[in-house]
């Protein structure tokens, strides 16, 4: 589904990603871990098409298509979803109105009919159950005055509504208490299917107790320096990142 080859990216002339290689197949869950500043969030942003980042080398194929050639909105319409680390507030625009605009633009791109108000609302009702989100939040301005947990739940709710084939969760666990973490993870797990894939970007192992990855990759200084199964995450939890840092740094000397 997703094939990243030798991906280099920089921001304002500073290289951040220095040759990422990653293959993700449908049905898989990949965790990207790593110390602060290793480039985890940059990778998520580059895949979603944030403009501040310049891709200097490499390619990304998404279902055989050159992903980097697509505008951010077309990537979304093709099925790439990014759950933001810091969801943005849009005053005066209700979540319902926002999502209806989004869902119908995506449907239009895919050659599907726009959903009328009745069908849209019943779809919303169904998906709201997944993340146990309160109906009241839907009529409030998007993310405005939402608690940290509500914002993250809203992200996963939007994911449920848009039914992406590739979901990227960028530090979705940050700022969540244990109950919210369980609810959010529950939502993600229910959305999992043999046809879609998930990238979980996280600093801590904690989230991976709930969303169990098939593969774990460690990102350090803009490269994937170690890959393994879910046991690797447990090892990191126990030993921290220092031993990996030392391995890499001594090898490069």
């Amino acid at each position: 589904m997703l094939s990243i080859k030798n991906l280099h990216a920089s921001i304002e002339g500073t290289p951040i990603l220095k040759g990422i290689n990653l293959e993700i197949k449908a049905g898989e869950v990949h965790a990207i871990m790593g110390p602060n500043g290793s480039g985890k969030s940059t990778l998520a942003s580059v895949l979603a098409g944030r403009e501040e980042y310049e891709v200097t080398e490499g390619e990304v194929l998404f279902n055989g298509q050159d992903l980097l050639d697509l505008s951010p909105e077309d990537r979304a319409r093709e099925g790439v979803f990014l759950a933001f680390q810091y969801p943005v507030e849009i005053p005066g625009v209700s979540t319902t109105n926002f999502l209806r605009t989004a869902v119908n633009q995506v449907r239009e791109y895919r050659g599907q009919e726009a959903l009328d108000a009745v069908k849209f609302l019943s779809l919303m009702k169904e998906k709201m159950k997944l993340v146990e989100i309160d109906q009241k939040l839907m009529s409030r301005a998007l993310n405005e005055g939402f608690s940290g947990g509500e914002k993250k739940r809203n992200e996963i709710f939007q994911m449920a509504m848009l039914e992406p084939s590739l979901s990227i969760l960028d530090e979705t666990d940050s700022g969540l208490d244990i109950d919210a973490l369980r609810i959010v993870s529950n939502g993600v797990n229910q959305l999992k299917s043999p046809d879609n894939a998930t990238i979980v970007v996280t600093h801590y192992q904690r989230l991976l107790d709930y969303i169990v990855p098939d593969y774990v990759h460690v990102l350090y200084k803009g490269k994937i320096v170690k890959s393994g199964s879910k046991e690797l995450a447990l090892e990191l939890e126990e030993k921290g990142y220092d031993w990996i840092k030392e391995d890499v740094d001594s090898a490069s000397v």
Partner: protein
Amino acid sequence: MSKDNQILEEFTSKEYEHGWSVDFEADEAPAGLNEEIIRWISAKKEEPQWLLEWRLKAFSTWQNMTEPEWANVHYPKVDFQKLKYYSAPKQKSKPKNLDEVDPELLQIYERLGISLNEQKKLQGIAVDAVLDSVSVGTTFKETLSKLGIIFCSFSEAVQEHPELVKKYLGSVVPMTDNYYAALNSAVFSDGSFCYIPKGVRCPMELSTYFRINAANTGQFERTLIVAEDESYVSYLEGCTAPQRDENQLHAAVVEIYAATNAEVKYSTVQNWFPGDKNGKGGIYNFVTKRGICAGDNSKISWTQVETGSAVTWKYPSCILKGDNSIGEFYSVAVTNNYQQADTGTKMIHIGKNTKSRIVSKGISAGKSQNSYRGQVQVMKRAQNARNFSQCDSLLMGDRCGAHTFPYIDIQNPSAKVEHEATTSKIGEDQIFYCNQRGIDTEDAVALIVNGYAKEVLNQLPMEFAVEAQKLLALTLEGSVG
């Protein structure tokens, strides 16, 4: 060129939708402004002697006044002698009703999306259509007259209801009020007149649609709304003009009178030609709008969506004379390219327990300048007056300006006056967030701007709110990267 600028450039090439004009034979006054012209206009309209004298008095007042320069707008001075002060489409005979109006004129309004014919019965809105200096027709007159409501062109009111016109004309905006109001009082041509009798709740929206068609002609319309005790009316005003290289002057006066327990809601969607992307052409919109809450418990509410005009100078105001009366002002003013707007309101608290509320949302893009200017005045006997003002500015790009000039004058210590102001920029983060959900940038801007202006748009009657939302989106298309 950065991506921001590229998109801004694209956007500035957007064309004004209503820029077309129609050629028809017109009955015009010769260019120039003098007593003769005023006599000519008055004679053309077969006005009574008192009105001619009123006009002449206004003219001599105007001659002794100087053009105001305190507003934060800059433009070449208007040469008043070069303008024509009257232009009316020639019609064979005076039409007695809408069926007799020249179909060509009706087509102009059809093209603007305003049907004076077939659909008129479906819409629940009565329309007075003013083209250049005359009203071409008013719908639903009979239905309204059964309730005692008078809704007609100003000229017709002068003929049919001279006692009402004489009583209220200039009672809210005196001819000496300001430079443009004096000019308007001297040369006004047509406009709408509306009278709601005691105890009547007007069952439909009343509206006037102003269209400038002729070149080199000023439009000086006059609107007078009188709401008697316990009455209610909601009034809408829309306007467009052709795209021309020369600047054109529009200097209107609107007066509203609200008696005891009366309520008047006045909404404007202003879309005069704003000039081209280089700032050439466009309407000078120098307008005086004022309402008086003369009776106790009366209420006047102004809502405006200002998207057009090269230069706007406009402060719809309320004089809160009656005890417990309420004044409201809700405004969205959008400027783009080289547009300049200096707009706001005055709330003058005279009666006890009077309340006013001001919500102003400015949006600036391109190289435009957008100023809010507002005055809250609490007089000595205005015990327990309350005011709340909120002035927000939204900036797009880095070549535009937003300014706020609040004036507060309190002469009664019991007054409570609050003023809140914010300035923000449309964030790239907000746009990217929308993009990431599959929403393209144009729609993202529309969504964000409409969200920002929601509090004001919510005040508009349904049909207008939808129109205004589309207009905002259109005016700002592509203005952010």
